[in-house]
């Protein structure tokens, strides 16, 4: 659930992120042999870890050009800024102070048994088969069902919401892209009307938004839609994508996987390291509101920047031997959840889902590998990197 500005279809230089390439580590690490700040497609692209952290912590660097909000969000929503992604400064902070406590560690920890039950149920459905498209059977349903039940939307609507989310992030064609945003607005609008008509307050996130106050005012319908829209996108895609990258990697590295199967206490650190090397959300956009200099490059007020999280996480100055996957890497400061004010709102939920999912998988299906007869889909140039489909074979449980 990255609260990071709109990512880019081609998140790296010189073909660092190419569809169909299994491990992009060497390519991404090679970015650091070049200049740290380069103008590309009208935006200054920042790849050094320290630069990305410094820029995203500046109050005078915003997530988006206010003049561009209408254009950008027409594709994504109602022509209004998505909340809190496209807000900056005080407005942004007000909403984050409302939203962050809802996703704080203590809050999400209560979901652990719910996530475990769902994970086990999904595995039960294919455990006897010995083969599965793990993306469709597990990576996609797990986070989306958890998230929709948290929001308070019916699970029957999962297919529709996945269609919307894919239309915005990985559209099949122009038509899909054009239809997705408006359909979601229409759907959320109807949901809010239904709740208002029923008059009863539901104990879920949307119910919470409807009764919340910012600056002493209730949120408008539009506000609630703009928040929920973003949460649907974030909650239905990023954990799915991360999980598919991780399970694909573990399927190809049985010795490392066996270590995690034997000792699940290694999982949290392993998840951090796999987040670092796969960084599903490749890059974010930032917008300068003042002139400043970085790496000897002049940035002018009004300039657009692209902060490449995936490259920053492969910066050898911050991560020695960045291309080696080391579950015991000390002080892993990766910024796969972004850095600065717009740092991911849902990272605690994401980490919990990833850990519980891998624990459940390894308990039931400790040996899995890529199906030699089917090809996994390495979607590296998508806004969010994932492996779809992810065909696995395993010893039937």
């Amino acid at each position, binding site marked *: 659930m990255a609260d990071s500005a709109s990512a880019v279809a081609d998140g790296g230089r010189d073909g660092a992120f190419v569809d169909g390439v299994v491990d992009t580590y060497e390519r991404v690490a090679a970015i650091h042999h070049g200049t740290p700040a380069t103008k590309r497609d009208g935006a200054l692209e920042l790849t050094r870890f320290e630069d990305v952290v410094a820029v995203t912590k500046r109050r005078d660097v915003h997530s988006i050009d206010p003049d561009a909000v209408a254009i950008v969000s027409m594709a994504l929503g109602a022509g209004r800024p998505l909340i809190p992604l496209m807000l900056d400064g005080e407005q942004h902070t007000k909403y984050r102070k409302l939203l*962050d406590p809802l996703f704080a560690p203590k809050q999400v920890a209560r979901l652990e048994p719910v996530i475990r039950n769902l994970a086990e149920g999904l595995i039960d459905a294919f455990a006897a088969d010995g083969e599965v498209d793990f993306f469709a059977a597990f990576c996609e349903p797990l986070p989306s069902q958890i998230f929709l039940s948290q929001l308070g939307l019916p699970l029957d609507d999962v297919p529709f919401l996945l269609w919307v989310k894919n239309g915005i992030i990985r559209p099949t064609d122009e038509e899909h892209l054009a239809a997705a945003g408006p359909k979601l607005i229409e759907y959320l609008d109807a949901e809010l009307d239904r709740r208002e008509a029923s008059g009863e307050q539901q104990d879920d996130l949307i119910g919470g938004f409807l009764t919340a106050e910012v600056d002493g005012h209730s949120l408008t319908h539009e506000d609630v839609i703009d928040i929920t829209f973003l949460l649907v996108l974030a909650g239905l895609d990023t954990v799915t994508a991360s999980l598919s990258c991780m399970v694909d990697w573990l399927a190809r590295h049985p010795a490392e996987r066996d270590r995690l199967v034997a000792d699940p206490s290694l999982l949290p650190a392993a998840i951090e390291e796999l987040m670092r090397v796969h960084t599903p959300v490749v890059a974010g956009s930032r917008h300068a509101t003042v002139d400043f200099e970085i790496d000897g490059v002049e940035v002018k007020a009004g300039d657009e920047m692209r902060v490449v999280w995936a490259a920053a996480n492969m910066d050898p100055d911050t991560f020695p031997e960045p291309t080696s996957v080391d579950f015991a890497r000390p002080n892993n400061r990766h910024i796969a959840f972004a850095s600065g004010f717009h740092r991911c*709102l849902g990272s605690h939920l994401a980490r919990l889902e990833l850990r519980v999912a891998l624990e459940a998988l390894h308990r039931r299906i400790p040996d899995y590998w890529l199906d030699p007869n089917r090809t996994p889909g390495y979607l590296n140039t998508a806004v969010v990197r994932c492996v779809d489909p992810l065909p696995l074979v395993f010893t039937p449980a």
Partner: protein
Amino acid sequence: MPDQERTREIAVDRELCMGSGMCIVYAPGTFAHDEATKAIVIDPMGDAIDAVRIAIEACPTGALSLTSEEERG
């Protein structure tokens, strides 16, 4: 490398804190959330200094700071 510092003071700006919980991820022995989902310091020496520094760096709003520290070694 073991920590060798003897004192450490960590300040939390409650006005800036928005309850992201990032500090709790990186330095769970040092930070917790109070009832208002604001960061509090439960034990300034609860984690290695590197972990505390990463927690401070990871705070999205810059609400945390190391205000005093005597390092040896």
